[in-house]
């Protein structure tokens, strides 16, 4: 019971870090454009990172379970939430350069650089989950499933960026 509570607290803390870090980055990355863009950034970036993590977690567990993997639901949740928290911590720190670049580089290139930073951080988060799974799993089938999940997660991220970019705009862009 105690372990469950601690795990729940840890999950909440990771989730809060995920939302806060990505929201601050989103606001900073759109600061050079308009207040409206900053508001959009405040929800678009969490939607990308926290939403992406939420969408990628069920397939991660499912693929592991069907391929004879060892990781439980709690382990899967802990793995993705830890990775989300780490990525958001990096984003929180990157907010300072993002603010600087957004204010001084009001060009398409500026948005491209900030988007690239988000993609790299997101990909690093996915790679961290993959590495953890590869270390934890014992069978080739489970490891193969983890690699397949990695490819899926990358494609999911690309899809999310595309959708969010079309509907709300990324970091002040159209």
């Amino acid at each position, binding site marked *: 019971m105690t372990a469950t509570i601690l795990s729940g607290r840890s999950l909440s803390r990771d989730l809060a870090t995920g939302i806060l870090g990505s929201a601050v980055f989103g606001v900073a990355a759109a600061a050079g454009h308009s207040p409206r863009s900053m508001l959009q950034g405040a929800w678009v970036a969490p939607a990308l990172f926290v939403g992406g993590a939420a969408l990628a977690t069920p397939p991660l567990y499912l693929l592991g379970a069907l391929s004879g993997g060892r990781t439980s639901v709690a382990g899967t949740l802990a793995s993705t939430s830890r990775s989300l928290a*780490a990525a958001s911590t*990096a984003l929180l*720190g*990157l907010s300072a*350069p993002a603010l600087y670049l957004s204010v001084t*580089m009001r060009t398409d*290139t500026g948005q491209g650089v900030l988007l690239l930073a988000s993609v790299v951080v997101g990909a690093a988060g996915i790679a961290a989950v993959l590495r953890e799974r590869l270390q934890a799993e014992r069978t080739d089938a489970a490891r193969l499933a983890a690699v397949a999940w990695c490819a899926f997660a990358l494609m999911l991220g690309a899809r999310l960026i595309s959708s969010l970019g079309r509907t709300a705009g990324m970091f002040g862009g159209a």
Partner: protein
Amino acid sequence: MQQVVDKLPLAAPEEADHDADPASPALTLIENVIRAPWRFLEELDGPDLLPKVRTLLATIAIAAGAFGAVVGTFRGGVQVLYCAVKMPMLLLGTLLVCVPAFVSIARALGVAISPRDVAAVTLGACARYALVLAGLSPVVWLLEGWLGYHGVALVTTACCALGGLASSTLIFRGLSRRGGAGRWAGLAFVAVYSVVGAQTAWLLRPFLVRPRTEHVPFVRHLEGDLFGSVGVTMRSAAGVYERDRDPAPAASPALEPALPMTTASPAEPQAPAQTETP
């Protein structure tokens, strides 16, 4: 006992040497930054970090200022002063913007390094960058007499690349000894510093200015970015000129075209004479 007594005079001169050179701790620190980065990193682990930070800041101000002054001599006059001020601003300003990102990246990647040590290591790397630039400044000065604008721009860029490489090795060494994904963190540090530094250099331009330029501003107004300018440069190098933005190539070497990466806006008709590279 007698043997111990016999050894005493041997130790005395060493102590005398240290006493005769009160500035040695600062000089030793600076020498270690260049010659023995591992020893410099060990020194950072010790107490009394503040005097070391002061020494590093002074090193950056003087060494980068010297390199900037040499770059400024290509045009001469007030540009020498401008560049001497702007070069330390470039290094320290970039570091200031990047340190929060460095701390968070190190934490996210599980590198066991405190924010204080992140700041100290990256400040040391900046000092190494500045010292390499200062060491190469006589080479730049020598070549300024032989090469034209484009040649000096290339030499300056090469010096900056060499300085960047030297400082990167210190960062990698400092992070890899802390465990975790130290190398990846180092790679991220270098990437973030490069992008922010490139933009800061763009904001603080002009650095290299043609000698016949009459008026040189301290900084230009905010327009475009370095990366877009590099694209224009590459197109121009391939012979594709954008007439609205780039001046046409001139026949005389004395009127050679502006570096496209430093294209001026139409509001600046004297663009060929006011080009520069960051």
